[in-house]
């Protein structure tokens, strides 16, 4: 029974990345960008038409591209015309099932659940300070995080007060309370110890708001308020960062200060595996509360074994 449950969870989470992103993961969409169109592909291939006869023959293509003619030549003239190139460009791409590692793409860490606290403290850790320096710097950084989070939280709640009922506000407050806590799981996999660091994402909050049926206008305002909150806790305001750097000035060298400032302003990108593991942890935690038997570590270890055995990334 338990094996069946675990397997089901693994397969549901791992083999349906599109579904998972919409329903299970709290992954923000990548910034919209203009992609290459099929017409542009056609235009590119037609640049190889050296004799301007409207067709690209084998001899006009570079050697590595010549198999294209055999694939796309429908009228038997041993060349590709525009329509034949277009047909190749728009042919459906075979779908493959991908598990861990490129399964559902990538997201900015702060949008996928990597907490700002984890980012800000992690960047300090990356400096590899002496223990004396770190002991002095860490309280300053933690105080900064607390300040940024509290300010952002207060701003968000004050905006939400105008949009939500008192009951709804309680739900949002509870969801916010989950945000800053980082979870580290050390799992003995039998092949060595694996560390998975997770932080509950903002997906809960976003989903809670979506479920409240606020109506289009209020929903949009709530969404915008959450985005401002996310932006604020990610980086703080420029003034807040300047104040942080000023406080660290006596602790860090100028080089360390420069590196820390640069690191804070980066937005690490994470694989959606991270998000998958994070949501898995939340699911497992809920299960544990119910059954008292399934632990996150057991579940994640099982999932990892299943996906490794499946070797399904091709």
């Amino acid at each position: 029974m338990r094996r069946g449950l675990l397997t089901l969870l693994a397969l549901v989470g791992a083999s349906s990345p599109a579904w998972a992103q919409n329903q299970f993961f709290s992954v923000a969409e990548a910034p919209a960008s203009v992609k290459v169109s099929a017409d542009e592909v056609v235009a590119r291939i037609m640049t190889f038409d050296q004799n301007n006869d409207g067709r690209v023959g084998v001899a006009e293509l570079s050697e590595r591209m010549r198999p294209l003619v055999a694939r796309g030549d429908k009228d038997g003239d041993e060349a590709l015309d525009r329509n034949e190139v277009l047909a190749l460009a728009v042919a459906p791409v075979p779908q493959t099932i991908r598990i861990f590692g490129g399964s559902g793409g990538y997201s900015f860490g702060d949008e996928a659940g990597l907490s700002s606290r984890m980012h800000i403290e992690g960047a300090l850790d990356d400096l590899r300070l002496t223990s004396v320096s770190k002991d002095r710097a860490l309280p300053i950084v933690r105080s900064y995080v607390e300040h940024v989070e509290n300010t952002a939280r207060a701003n968000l709640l004050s905006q939400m007060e105008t949009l939500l009922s008192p009951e709804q506000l309680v739900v949002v407050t509870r969801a916010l309370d989950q945000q800053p806590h980082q979870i580290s799981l050390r799992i003995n996999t039998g092949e060595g110890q694996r560390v998975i660091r997770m932080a509950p994402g903002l997906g809960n909050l976003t989903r809670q708001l979506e479920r409240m049926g606020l109506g289009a206008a209020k929903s949009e305002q709530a969404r915008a308020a959450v985005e401002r909150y996310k932006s604020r806790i990610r980086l703080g305001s420029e003034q807040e960062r300047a104040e942080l750097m000023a406080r660290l000035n006596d602790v860090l060298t100028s080089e360390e200060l420069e590196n820390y400032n640069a690191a804070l302003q980066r937005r690490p990108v994470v694989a959606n595996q991270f998000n998958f593991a994070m949501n898995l942890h939340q699911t497992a935690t809920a299960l544990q509360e119910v059954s008292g038997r399934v632990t996150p570590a057991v579940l994640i270890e099982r999932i990892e074994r299943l996906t490794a055995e499946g070797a399904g990334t091709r």
Partner: protein
Amino acid sequence: MNRIRGIVAFSLTGWVLMVGLSSSEWVSKVQAQSRTLRLPATPYPYADVVLPPHFKVAAAMRFDNTPPGNPVTNAGATLGRVLFYDRRLSANNTVSCASCHVQANGFADPNGVSRGFAGGHTDRHAMNLVNLRFHPRARFFWDERAGNLEEMTLLPIENSLEMGQKVDHLPEILGRDPHYADLFRNAFGDAQITRERIGRALAQFVRSMLSYQSRYDAGLAAARSIDDDFPNYSLAENRGKALFMRNCAVCHLEGQQAHFVVNTPANTGLDEDARTTDGGVGDITLKPADVGLFKSPSLRNVEVTGPYMHDGRFGTLEAVLEHYSSGGKNHPNRDIRVQPLHFTASEKAALIGFLKTLTDHAFLTDPKFSDPFQ
């Protein structure tokens, strides 16, 4: 019976006498003929290499693309090694695979683009051959046009610019050399030389090229985890490792700690124009989403595998880091992972320091991968 025992040396002089050759052709023929093959009495151990633990975890082993029908054997890889260095695989006996894939350079070409058998130049850099066994998609070349190593190894031989040789002619050419009969017999059970066997032997040799003895590997073995400082690293190298793990590992070390490969081809914002620059994978699939995507080689030994990128445009690691620091150009297919990182000068130095710990001197000088012709 294995007739290649002891130091087998044989001269290829007199292998063939050509008439009517131009002087340069004659010189090249003589050069090819005068090389002497030297192999050890006991074949080098290519099979059953003992890899460190971080290669053997399931997450790393699933990168292994060895097909069931062509496992690496000592005799098969030995034959592959001889073929890899044999200039008779080119149309005019002037170049071998090793002409562009140099061991000291991680089997990459130290030149930006490579010079073919007739003096022409390729338009892409000859990428390194480090740990090709551990590429999970098992697709090769910058544009991933080869579906496995067995296929990949034959394509440069037949390329009209690179080696210009008809692989179908090789059984006859190599068959004139009686020593190949022994090599093929040891590898495949009989002396028959076929196109398929040439590809399989070369693939075995390439698949045996495993780099796993760098300072990184030693450090990981000595540390509690990859996130902890490595005791054999300097402070700057540990800082570089931390920066790498935070900013680069999402692409180059995803889901495992051994291979330093990017699992799927990517557009890293090298060029802006999707119409006129090298289309990479898109030129093979014609899929709009593939335009400008390229396979990334392993970062192992990256210190010596430059120049970098598919066209060798960056001569130094500093230039590569500068590219990623800037975030690259705004190609419509640029990968979401390629974002401006704005590394400081000392961060760049630390990152390069870390990357240099991936150099595996044992691999770069291992005699079992060296030229057997002298």
